[in-house]
Structure formats: C-alpha cells, structure tokens
C-alpha cells in the first residue's frame, strides 16, 4: 500500500487507460482534498452501474471524497447495492460474505497494525442496512464490544434495494414494501442508539442532502478510529427505484427526512470531544 505503486513507468504510460493516467496526474492520493474540492480533482470513485438518481451512489461518492488518506484506506463491504460502486473504485477494497464485514475488518485492522506499526492504516466498513442491521448485526455489535479501531459507515436506504425492494429492519414503521403488503409492523432498528451503548467513541446520523456535514462526520470518524476505538456513521440514502419516486426527487426526499426522522445527530465520548477540539480548533460546520 505504498503511494509509489500508482506511478507507472514513463515508457509504459501511453498504453495505460486514460482513466488510470488521469488518476495518477490529478488524483487525490497524497493531497489533502475533501468534499469542498470536488470537481477539481479526479475522484477515486469510477463509473458504476447504479440506477439514475441513486442515493447510495451519492453517499458512497461523498464519503469516499471525504477520506482523510485514500491511499492508506482499506474499505470492506458486503453484497448489496453499495458494493456496485465500491468494487469499481480506485481503493483497496475487500468484499465479504453477507454480514461478515465487521469481523473481516477487525482481522484486517489487526494484521495491518502488525505489518505497518509506524503508519496509520484506516479500515472502513461501508455496507448497507441489510448487511449491518439485519444479517450482520451480531458481528457488527461484537466488533464494537471488543473496541476494534475501525469505522463503520451504514448506507441506509431503508429497503433491500439489490433484490427488488423487500422490507428491511431499518425500514420505517408502516412503510408498504414487498414482503410487507400491509405496511411494516415494527419500528426501525435503533442501531444508532445501540452504537452508543456498545462502546463506539463517536457516532453521527446524516443525510446525503447535507454534504458538508457528511464530510465532517466521515473525517472525524476515521481520525478518531485511528486512536480511540470504533466509530459509527449512518447515512440516509433514499432509493428512487424501490421507493417509487422520480430520480430527480432523491435530494428533496432526503431533505424532508432530515427535517423529520433523520435530523443530524452526533454523540461522542469526552475523550473524543477533546481530540476533535484539538484537531479542528473549534470550527463549526454550517449547512445551507
């Protein structure tokens, strides 16, 4: 995972794909770029097969643009909608059996800290609500109980998007979906509150309609996970295909959710609050 591996030999540069050369010349590796610089550098996210207007792909794109050190980051994912974009990204990516992402990430983090004792290698779990809250809930919770130094990012589209729109544990109560023709009859799983109890040092709940806050939360979560312990972020990423709204309405739906059940929320331990104050110098992020 050296930064040098992405630099091609000059005599072979002309046979490499244009995208690759672009990534070497204008990529974010080794520079401190963030969401505010989008559009002026080549993103590590590549062309992906997500539907038009997909909230998950916007969430993935913004979260990856906010990584503090993309060249030293390993992303672990699980099957679902999120891995379509993640597997086509210029990043170290590992796919796992459904629900195992936090166990695999724990092992990888321990291995990387033995192999590179002097470097900070960030291991980030990025998975959907099915992978984290339904099938992988025990693995996720146990990685938090053990205090593994990994960041977990949930891309919550409130539905099983990849398999055609079935009810998920994170769907809101009363939502009519496949496998829930009369409306879902229990509440959303409170993973955010569980993260606080299970020992996460930092947690945030954001929507894709507030990119600056999303970037700030991802940055804080990854930097705190390097030193203190597990961190958790829950990003609301509405799905136009299965929730049956127009692709152009994704951000409007996300904004409405941000005013209702997905209002911006953060928790942190006292130690984490002290580190954040030292890192950011008391800057507040305002969203327009």
């Amino acid at each position: 995972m050296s930064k040098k591996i992405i630099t091609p030999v000059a005599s072979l540069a002309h046979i490499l794909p244009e995208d690759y050369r672009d990534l070497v010349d204008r990529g974010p590796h080794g520079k401190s770029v963030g969401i505010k610089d989008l559009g002026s550098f080549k993103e590590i996210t590549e062309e992906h097969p997500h539907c038009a207007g997909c909230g998950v792909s916007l969430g993935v794109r913004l979260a990856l643009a906010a990584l503090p050190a993309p060249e030293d980051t390993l992303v672990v994912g699980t099957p679902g909608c999120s891995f379509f974009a993640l597997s086509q990204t210029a990043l170290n990516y590992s796919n796992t059996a459904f629900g195992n992402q936090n166990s695999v990430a724990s092992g990888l983090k321990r291995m990387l800290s033995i192999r590179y004792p002097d470097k900070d290698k960030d291991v980030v779990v990025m998975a959907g609500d099915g992978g984290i809250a339904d099938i992988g809930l025990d693995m996720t919770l146990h990685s938090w109980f053990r205090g593994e130094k990994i960041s977990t990012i949930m891309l919550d589209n409130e539905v099983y998007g990849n398999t055609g729109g079935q009810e998920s544990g994170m769907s809101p109560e009363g939502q009519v979906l496949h496998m829930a023709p009369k409306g879902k009859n229990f509440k959303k799983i409170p993973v955010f509150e569980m993260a606080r109890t299970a020992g996460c040092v930092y947690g945030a709940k954001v929507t894709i309609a507030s990119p600056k806050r999303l970037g700030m939360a991802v940055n804080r979560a990854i930097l705190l996970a390097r030193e203190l312990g597990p961190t958790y972020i829950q990003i609301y990423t509405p799905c136009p295909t299965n929730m049956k709204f127009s692709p152009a309405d994704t951000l409007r739906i996300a904004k409405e959710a941000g005013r209702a059940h997905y209002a911006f929320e953060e928790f942190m331990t006292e130690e984490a609050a002290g580190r954040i104050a030292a890192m950011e110098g008391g800057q507040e992020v305002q969203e327009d």
Partner: protein
Amino acid sequence: MYLSVRVDTEKCIGCKICITSCPEPNVFIFLPEQKLVEVNESRCKACGLCTTTCPKDALSIS
C-alpha cells in the same frame, strides 16, 4: 439519442452545488478561472438531481 445535462454558461455562477448533488463521479468539472462548471456528457445518466438544486436554473436535461 441520449439525454444529458447542459450548462447555460451565462447563468452559471460556479457555486458548485451541482457537483455535490450528482451521484455520478467526474461528471462536473469545475473551471476556477471562468467560475463555471463543465459537463462530461458521456458520464451523465440524466437523473435530473443537479437541475433541482441549481439556484440559478442554469442546468437543464436535454
């Protein structure tokens, strides 16, 4: 015939809101000198999210 987003260069003020609202990577390229955005049309899926967020109505799907 493919659909794609077009930028009206007279209305665009370079606020970059469209760049953070687009689910596709590398579609919008920001030109800092002209304070404008440029579109890579071959990557656009014409979902229309950027047109709903543009404060100056400079973007249209056509």
